[in-house]
């Protein structure tokens, strides 16, 4: 069942001026419920524009965004309700932190939802647990945290709204490997605890291979390819033709196969590849 459905979406920036740019053209897309969908593409391929359409931050120039089969722009005045249902973590979300304490900042979304104080406190604790922020950090100023902690605090601010769909735009960009690993762990934990639908935009094929069930590849404002992670990464040639790549481990395995080594299915994560490689070594 499609949780979110985009129908013939077009999006044009500054129409009618010399700066007019078409960010999305005739995009049709279905996001399935309860799985992790990854969106990949070059800078300027329309990924970030697309995620802003999903929760109604931007309105498509033409076309419809359907959430559970209902057009989100049917009642424009109630668009903020859509934003609570589709939680969007924007790029570099740590720059949106503003409150005196981390806990208050995480509580900003739930408070805007009009929840009771007890409910807010419970949600802040729960969200902090999912992103792995220690309780003593919650009473600190968000500006005292490290880069990775700030990022996770910002993600917790969205998770605390308990959205039906969690959208993350480049959640691991600019973090060190440890920080990146903790973000991925957060997403996995979120999936385990809530079973919610997740959409991730990323440049990193490795990250995508590790956590996505399905992948959408965007090229110049259109959908270039979509399917399960295995399907998409099996088309290494096409991905490389448009200047993207497959995860390094997939590239290695493909090369081995080209050299005549027998490999039945090409893995796309290191953990899947290790047993296959071990078998070959024997």
């Amino acid at each position, binding site marked *: 069942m499609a949780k979110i459905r985009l129908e013939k979406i077009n999006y044009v920036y*500054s129409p009618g001026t*010399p*700066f007019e740019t078409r960010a999305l053209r005739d995009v049709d897309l279905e996001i399935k419920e309860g799985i992790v969908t990854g969106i990949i593409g070059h800078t300027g391929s329309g990924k970030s524009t697309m995620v*802003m359409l999903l*929760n109604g*931050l931007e309105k498509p120039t033409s076309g419809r965004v359907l959430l559970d089969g209902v057009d989100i722009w049917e009642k424009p005045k109630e668009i*903020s309700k859509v*934003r*609570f249902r589709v*939680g*969007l*973590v*924007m*790029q570099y*979300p740590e*720059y*949106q*932190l*503003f409150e005196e304490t981390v806990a208050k900042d995480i509580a*900003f*979304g739930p408070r*805007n*939802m009009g929840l009771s104080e007890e409910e807010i406190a419970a949600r802040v604790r729960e969200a902090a647990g999912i992103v792995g922020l220690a309780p003593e950090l919650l009473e600190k100023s968000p*500006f005292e945290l490290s880069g990775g902690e700030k990022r996770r605090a910002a993600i917790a*601010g*969205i998770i605390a*709204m308990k959205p039906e769909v969690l959208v993350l735009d480049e959640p691991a960009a600019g973090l060190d490997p440890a920080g990146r690993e903790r973000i991925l762990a957060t997403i996995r934990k979120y999936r385990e605890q809530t079973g919610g639908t997740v959409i991730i935009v990323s440049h990193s094929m490795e990250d995508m291979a590790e956590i996505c069930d399905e992948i959408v590849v965007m090229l110049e404002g259109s959908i270039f390819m979509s399917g399960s992670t295995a399907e998409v990464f099996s088309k290494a040639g096409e991905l490389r033709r448009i200047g993207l790549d497959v995860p390094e481990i997939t590239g290695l395995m493909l090369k081995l196969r080209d050299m005549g080594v027998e490999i039945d299915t090409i893995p796309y994560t290191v953990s899947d590849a290790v047993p296959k490689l071990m078998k070959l070594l024997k």
Partner: protein
Amino acid sequence: MNNISFGQYYPADSLIHSLDARFKVICAFLYIVCSFLCKNILSFAALLASAVILVAVSGIPMRILLRALRPIIFILLFTVVINMFWTTGETLLFSWWKIRVYYEGIMNALFIAVRIVVLIIGTSIFMTYTTTPIALTDALESLLSPLKVVKAPVHEFAMMITIALRFIPTLTEETNRIMAAQKARGADFTSGSVFKRARALIPVLVPLFVSAFRRADELATAMECRCYHGGEGRTRLNVPHCRPRDFVMLFVIIAFGAGLILINIYGVGYTMK
């Protein structure tokens, strides 16, 4: 692209776009003087005609130009009304209760309206629409450089304006991004009382200031890393060149002003007092 998409600069390939920014600043100034030289019907007609020619030469669509007039509509209406009803003259056209409208009043209102419109269109064509803000600042620095003799910090002033202009689009983008991020968390900037709306801006202003200070710090470091030490002995990347067309434009404007003075001397038609 974002660096120039603010303000009113309208990219096009026209004669006026290609002029030296310093000449454009002088031309804009002279054009203002010209509009104040007009005193009678013929000179105002010439002024209007010159504005039409300017618009045609600049290659800027009328739709965009009218946008420049939008902020002054109120002032325009106000001056027209004042002139129409408060000018006394000899030929009474219309009178009702205490309101008297004279022929002179109508003409004055018309003249002043033309003057204001031409003034705005002329200066915006010479400066804001066809010159990037950075080129404009450089032109001002160059034109004001004689003041360096009296130790006025002309370069520092120009650098400040350049940096401020440079950061307008950056901070606008940043503001939009932060507003979007807070909207995604259910912030509401458009409803409620004034007080509530002002409060709603806190989640935008705090991160905005934090990032503005961070950027200022980073820029200062970056400038020092490249040995910036003020304007002393600094050469330019884009050295401005005056070409024959710049002098031609200047000459045309001066000739136009002289023509207007001649028209005034011979006084054709109704003359404004």
